[in-house]
């Protein structure tokens, strides 16, 4: 039994120390935004934020999360009140099949929390670990730029809500 802090709440989790965070999020906590893609930390679909950094949850065992804050896409906003990053992805229609998008948004969120005005080169370098087979890359890049803009303007209040 260990305590896992997810989206600002403590959860008592009954799982082995080597269980990947992704399994716990999806199977035990019903947080299904993070996706199982490759299971090898190579595609980015499972990305969540841990203590402000983008982390591949499929290769991160519970053992490493003692005392750390996990944020998933559900922790950023909801359908009713989307966070700036979510609004930006919707407004740019950046998803096609959508499987990679939750991971993309989480890494972009971590980037924008660290660097409010990234250059295009910085965005591309940061997003490089993420695969998208539909090919919506250009829309994703636009959405990240839009999110950066949104966060600096009207919606700044919602940005840091739970993604520490």
């Amino acid at each position, binding site marked *: 039994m260990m305590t896992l802090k997810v989206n600002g709440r403590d959860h008592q989790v009954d799982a082995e120390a080597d269980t990947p965070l992704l399994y716990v999020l999806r199977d035990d906590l019903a947080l299904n935004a993070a996706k199982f893609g490759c299971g*090898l930390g190579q595609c980015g679909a499972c990305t969540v934020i*841990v203590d402000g950094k983008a982390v591949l949850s499929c290769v991160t065992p519970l053992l490493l999360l003692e005392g750390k804050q996990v944020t998933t896409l559900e922790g950023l906003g909801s359908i009713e009140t989307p966070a700036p990053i979510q609004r930006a992805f919707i407004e740019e229609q950046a998803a096609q099949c959508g499987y990679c998008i939750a991971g993309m948004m989480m890494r972009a969120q971590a980037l924008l929390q660290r660097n409010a005005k990234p250059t295009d080169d910085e965005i591309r370098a940061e997003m490089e670990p993420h695969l998208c087979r539909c090919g919506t890359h250009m829309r994703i890049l636009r959405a990240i730029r839009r999110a950066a803009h949104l966060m600096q303007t009207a919606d700044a209040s919602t940005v840091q809500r739970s993604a520490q």
Partner: protein
Amino acid sequence: MMTGRIVGGAVAALVVAGMAVAFAIAWRPSIAAIDAPAPQTFDAALVRRGRDLASIGNCSTCHTMRSGKDFAGGLPVPTPFGTIYSSNITPDAETGIGRWPEAAFRRALRSGVDRSGRHLYPTFPYDHFTKVNDEDDRALYAYLMTRQPVRAPAYANQLSFPFDQRFVVAGWKLLFLHGGTYQPDSTKSAEWNRGAYLVEGLAHCGACHTPRNALGAERASAQFAGGEADNWSAYAINAQSRAPVPWDADALFVYLRQGWHPDHGVARGPMAEVVSNLSDVPDSDIRAIATYMAGVFGPPTPDRKRRSDDVLAQVKSSSAPALPVSAAGAAIYQAACAACHESGRRLPYGGVNLALSSALSVPDARNAANTILSGIRPVEGERGPIMPGFAASMNNAQIAALLDYLRARFSSQLPWAGLEQTVADARHAQIVFLQTSPGPNNTPADASQRDKP
């Protein structure tokens, strides 16, 4: 009074004579500029050969910066004397080598002097390139002069006095630059000689794999005893190698050809760039390098051979011994690493069994730390090993505990000291490296692409 004047005069004469000698040693004439030759004036076959040679010389790695244009320079190279920026070697007339005649290019490779007569810093490894023959210099010149010209002015080096004075380099050369192209050893095979010519010359393996003295020159008495490159340790590649399984010519060939070997693991860091560049080069040259280097490693002693057999047997049975070491490290290994590294699948489908890892047997923990932090990137279009990096999910204490455990379990060496600092430094260096190094190399792996200039 009189004596004083005589002494004073003698001192003055000595100073003047000394300056004249220093000037004679340091001064090099300028070579007249030419109008940049048109690319079509170069023979296509020569350009193609130059391309292979430039790959062997690993030229693009230093002369290209991250997200910069090929060969346009600007890469900061940290040295103990300050930071030196690589130069633009595209044929741009103003900022590159477009107006250099072949004689000036050859002089730069042979003796480290640019067209205008300035001494070049030995970060440019002309102590090796001086061994390259005229024919290959010509091919390299043809290749570089037919690249896309890029306007990219040089960055100013950041060196402290006296190292910012280029005449100082002339003194360095007196001590450490031994000119003369490679002379074959008639008692050895043609393949061995080809390998020696490439390794000692253009490939400049010793530039990283040989330790350097206080003046930054390779220590001839410790050739290939291990050095460093870009915050990675470059392993000893002679009889002092700590590789759990001794290297032989076949293993070296496979490793240099594909970038990994099941009994040795994966080329990482700067060596990954070397093998990526080598993917352009014909098998025969890789084979020659492997043959020569196998001789440098020498045959394993009976003791090493026995230990190697033990390790290989242990890898097959893969039973974990109980160890009274860092419990935290053991738990992290079991949870985060063992699933791949003890899968029983050989590279590239599983992680290498860490009992085979040189990184855990060498005195320097940096390579192991770097690999845990950044993982191993996939090479586009190739069936190769991969590993996720753990920089974001493990903190320094966790990585230090893991390294401590790995060292105890998988090597017969004493524990590493100061691991948390090593990891902290590696984390910092990695961030700097990612900001400045060339992006991932997507050299075509398809052999049919290799003869295209």
